[in-house]
């Protein structure tokens, strides 16, 4: 049987293609719904937050899933990026048009966050596991305190006056860029080196992999994208206050990564979108909303790790069902021919 292009691809490229397809079809579906007036105001208000959370989850997954280190300071990187990018955008409010301002602000925010990622990365190189988690957690809290005590960040009352440039298209472009960089990195020589560090750092070092260099790279790259997400956040809400970026925010991002599966980029994308939509879609439940949201998270976590459920999911996967149907159809056809 002649294989088609899709089947000829490397397995990882095929997987990545599906991830891109999911994103693009979501984008297309939203655009079509928008054009045909089927998009509610409520849902469209969630589009940019979905993009923000997807970028955050995917970039944190790089540290947790690929490098295998637990970082609890992702909200800290996000806040640094957000403040840097928004201050830049405010400065150039009158000078640059929105189409130029937002990408530049994202670049500035991302670079500054990456710099902080590097700064944290250096002491963090000596730590592992729980200790690393504690240091990153502390880092996030320190940043928050510093931001509150500075004047040019607006202090406790928050930074106001950032131009509201973020659109779904811009957010979507940022998501695709993030996916492109991280998926390609994971599939490259560097990605394999990073994963080898996760599996066994000593063995990896013995074959000449520069552990410190790669850890620094992952930390700053992950921070870079967190910074971009921060700028997107700052450009979609008219007030940026430091209290948003507390450790609860870091935990929320961690939940997305764990729920989607560590090391699975597609999982992070879907989980991030789901976790953004879920609490909002339950507004009709009024007082029970947060209770049921928590319950739903617990159920999802249990099902996600339950072997039996995985078997069931495997048995019900679209591809399997399709091939089953095809087999069944062929069998029938052959039976008819024979008979």
């Amino acid at each position, binding site marked *: 049987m002649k294989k088609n292009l899709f089947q000829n691809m490397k397995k990882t490229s095929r997987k990545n293609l599906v991830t891109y397809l999911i994103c693009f079809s979501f984008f297309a579906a939203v655009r079509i719904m928008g054009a045909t007036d089927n998009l*509610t*105001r*409520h849902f*469209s*208000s*969630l589009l940019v*937050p979905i993009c923000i959370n997807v970028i955050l989850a995917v970039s944190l997954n790089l540290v947790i899933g690929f490098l295998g280190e637990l970082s609890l300071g992702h909200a800290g990187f996000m806040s640094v990026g957000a403040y840097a990018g928004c201050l830049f955008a405010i400065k150039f409010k009158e000078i640059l048009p929105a189409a130029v301002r937002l990408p530049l602000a994202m670049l500035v925010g991302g670079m500054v966050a990456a710099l902080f990622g590097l700064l944290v990365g250096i002491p963090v190189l000596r730590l592992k596991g729980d200790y690393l988690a504690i240091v990153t957690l502390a880092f996030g*809290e320190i940043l928050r*305190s510093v931001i*509150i*005590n500075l004047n040019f960040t607006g*202090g*406790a*009352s*928050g930074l*106001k006056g950032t131009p*509201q440039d973020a659109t779904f298209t811009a957010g979507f472009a940022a998501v695709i860029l993030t996916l492109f960089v991280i998926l390609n990195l994971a599939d490259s020589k560097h990605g394999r080196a990073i994963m080898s560090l996760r599996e066994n750092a000593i063995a990896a070092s013995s074959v000449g992999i520069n552990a410190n260099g790669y850890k620094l790279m992952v930390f700053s790259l992950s921070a870079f994208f967190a910074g971009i997400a921060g700028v997107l*956040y700052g450009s*979609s*809400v*008219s*007030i940026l*206050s430091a*209290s*948003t970026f507390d450790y609860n925010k870091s935990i929320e991002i961690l939940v997305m990564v764990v729920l989607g599966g560590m090391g699975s980029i597609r999982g992070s994308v879907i989980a991030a979108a789901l976790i953004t939509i879920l609490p*909002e879609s339950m*507004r*009709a*439940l*009024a*007082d*029970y*909303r*947060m209770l*049921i949201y928590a*319950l739903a998270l617990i*159920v999802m976590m249990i*099902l996600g790790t339950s072997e*039996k459920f995985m078997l*069931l999911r495997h048995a019900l996967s679209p591809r399997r069902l399709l091939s089953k149907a095809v087999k069944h159809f062929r069998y029938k056809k052959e039976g008819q021919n024979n008979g």
Partner: protein
Amino acid sequence: MKKFLSVFMAGVMACGMLTACSGNSDSQTEGKVLYIGGSGPLTGDYATYGTSVKQGAELAMEEINAAGGVNGYTVYVKVEDDQADPLQAVSAYASLMDDGMNVSLGGTTSGACIAVSEEAYKDGLLMLTPSGSQKECTQYDNGFRVCFQDPDQGKYAAKFIKDNNVGSKVAILYEKSNDYSVGIYENFAATAEEVGLEVVTTQAFTDQSNQDFSVQLQAVKNSGADLLFMPFYAQQAAYVLTQADSMGLDVVFFGVDGMDGILEKIGRENQHLTEGVMLLTPFAASSTEENVVSFVNRYKSKYNAVPDQFAADAYDAVYAIVEAFKTAGVETDDETFNEKMIAAMTQITVEGVTGTMQWTAEGEPNKEASAVVIKDGAYVTYQDYTA
């Protein structure tokens, strides 16, 4: 596996039924409806504020509808949860807009309210926030508020202390990580300098060190101050009063409206500590004004709690919107509805439980700030106390 699945399915169905139930209770009354929507933290760290706003606003709705509505309309109030998060507040606003909201109550907390004000401005909707006290909450023409703006409270407090000679050497303790506290502090300090009030020391704390105040209070004691200005919330104020007592700090404690609720926070056994504590607030639940008494009684019988500042502000906000609706005399589906409502806001006078109010075009209420003093576990007005 089967058992697990069945439990899971039962859970899903239970959720579905809950949705159905709450759907029923939310169903709007037949006929013409004036839909007032708002958001506040009903869950999370600041849940008390949002819950108060929701209850105050819903009480006003019931009263107005029981009295036959307004202009042939029934009033419908819905307060959504935003957990004091700007992003969620915007989503809540969007969901209310889908629902057909006519007038917005904005957000309960300042940050959320600023985010909502941006959206309401784009829609041209009238927004009257009960408690968004930061300056930017009413930055646009369509934004109004019931509470005092943070800076104004600081100004009033400094003037009050100077005019009534409550203290001459003032110490300040404020929460550096809280926008409300910082806003009041800055303006208090500026006005104090203006009117010639001597500030002997300024101490600060943050939300990470808000239980032990011994260092700051010792500094206040050493400075020889005779009045301590405390622009923060009741919980921390309760700690401060207890610790000040144990170190023998003898000053006049002067708070602002956030300190409302101090009597409940400090508890009955420590009530003697609050003796002589002063606070500047437009609303006192123990006031003897006729409308306040009836509001407090109805609130108590419905929710089994004493209404605080937030509940009173929300109650007044709904009445103000209804008053504006009456004055504007416009149908909700009229093209000029928003315009006329916003114009009417500056024409109306509302005799609310937080005072008699008129609004400036900037969205600020003109109302009296009165100081109350705690005497034997109850608020009395400053005039009564000194007389």
